[in-house]
């Protein structure tokens, strides 16, 4: 059961990873926009960024702030890491996926199904990695272009029922990178992730994807 929850969780993480492959650009018709994304994604070899995550909930008087970083190397190496308030690392590399959680003062491998779920999800997200945003059966994607470009992802089937209502991705019109992501888990349960220090096609040291000792 927890695996099911983690599967969705990691699908979400990889959606976020896939979101980086969205690139702002000239406006096209609905079909051309996604074709444009697919074409642009081919030029991304490596990607890294820091992020600040704000969790808004009714129970919180102020948002819970989390900080972390993200690495990607084509075609399928990921690292999604939180520094605080609770350390955790998810790594996918060479068809192996692992998740580490902070326990009794150190990072230990999560044996509760998180990594297993990631393996399942990897097959689902391969489409995202090649920019096929509109071809993932789990979500419907629409693009709205005004001052900012906003992509809205809504669950297509029942797999996300009760977990995610929608995801909104706002792109910066000038820098052509993702400005923010909002994940709506419920009307008063929203996660906002702001990315900064985004580096495209710079060297990522291989140790980033190695097992955490």
């Amino acid at each position, binding site marked *: *059961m*927890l695996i*099911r*929850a983690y599967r*969705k*969780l990691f699908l*979400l*993480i990889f959606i976020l990873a896939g979101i980086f492959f969205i690139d702002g650009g000239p406006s096209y018709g609905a079909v051309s926009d996604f074709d444009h994304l697919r074409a642009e994604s081919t030029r991304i070899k490596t990607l890294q960024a820091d992020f600040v*995550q704000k*969790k808004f*909930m009714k*129970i*919180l*008087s102020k948002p*819970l702030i*989390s900080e972390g970083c993200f690495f990607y190397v084509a075609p399928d190496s990921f690292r*999604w890491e*939180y520094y605080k*308030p*609770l*350390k*955790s690392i998810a790594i996918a590399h060479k068809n192996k996926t692992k998740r580490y*959680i*902070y*326990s*009794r003062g150190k990072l*230990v491998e*999560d*044996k*509760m199904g998180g990594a297993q779920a990631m393996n399942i999800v990897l097959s689902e997200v391969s489409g995202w990695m090649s920019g096929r945003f509109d071809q993932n059966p789990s979500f419907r994607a629409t693009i709205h272009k005004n001052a900012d470009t906003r992509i809205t992802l809504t669950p297509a089937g029942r797999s996300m029922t*009760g*977990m995610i209502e929608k995801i909104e991705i706002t792109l910066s019109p000038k820098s052509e990178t993702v400005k923010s992501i909002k994940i709506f*888990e*419920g009307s008063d*349960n929203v*996660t906002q992730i702001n990315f900064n220090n985004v580096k495209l096609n710079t060297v990522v040291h291989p140790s980033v994807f190695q097992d955490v000792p």
Partner: protein
Amino acid sequence: MKKLSLFILFLFLFSCRTMPAINPPDDSTDKNLFSCPDPFLKEGYRFIHAIEYRTAGHPGNSMIGVTVADPVLRSLSCAIMTAEGMVLFEAETASDGIKISRAIPPFDSEAFAENMIDDIELIFMKPEGNLRNIGYLADGSKDCRYREENGSVTDVIENKFDGMEIKRYSSSGELKRHVLLNKTTNPYQSIELLADETFDYSLLMDLIEAQPVKKQTFKRK
């Protein structure tokens, strides 16, 4: 000799899991000066803890827990989320019981919600039951014993060296919960809860943030 060792071990384990005797204060002076250990909240507070959850025979998992507790109204709200921010469980006490607003498997059973609210109440709220015994345990720890309406018993213990403890016994005298609170100025800085259930579990809670709150909620019945 081996049999004797086993017998001593059995006695030790048995004595740890059943209600110990409380020796009343020696004289009337001591009795008058005796004050019960009271680590419980005096005003509404919001806590955010890093929680490590362990079940018997399984490795732990870490989560973030948010608790809002009002000791005056005896109201509680709580949420559990993953390190990544996904909310797995959210509930609050209401006038007609527990109102669950979100529960993702394996946190979607009624028993889980009941246990969780009861555990939080045990940690943060002063026992509602009648104070039945005060005094000292065999090791010199100060102990106040409350008997709840449902027959269960709660011991609130202060040890000079180990900090505060809360123990909840079933009506038949079996130890069901054991809470250890940090021996610092803030007892909620570090909390350990051990639960004796069909599937035993433990919670290790380390404080991330605490702030006083004033919130109108309803008392659970």
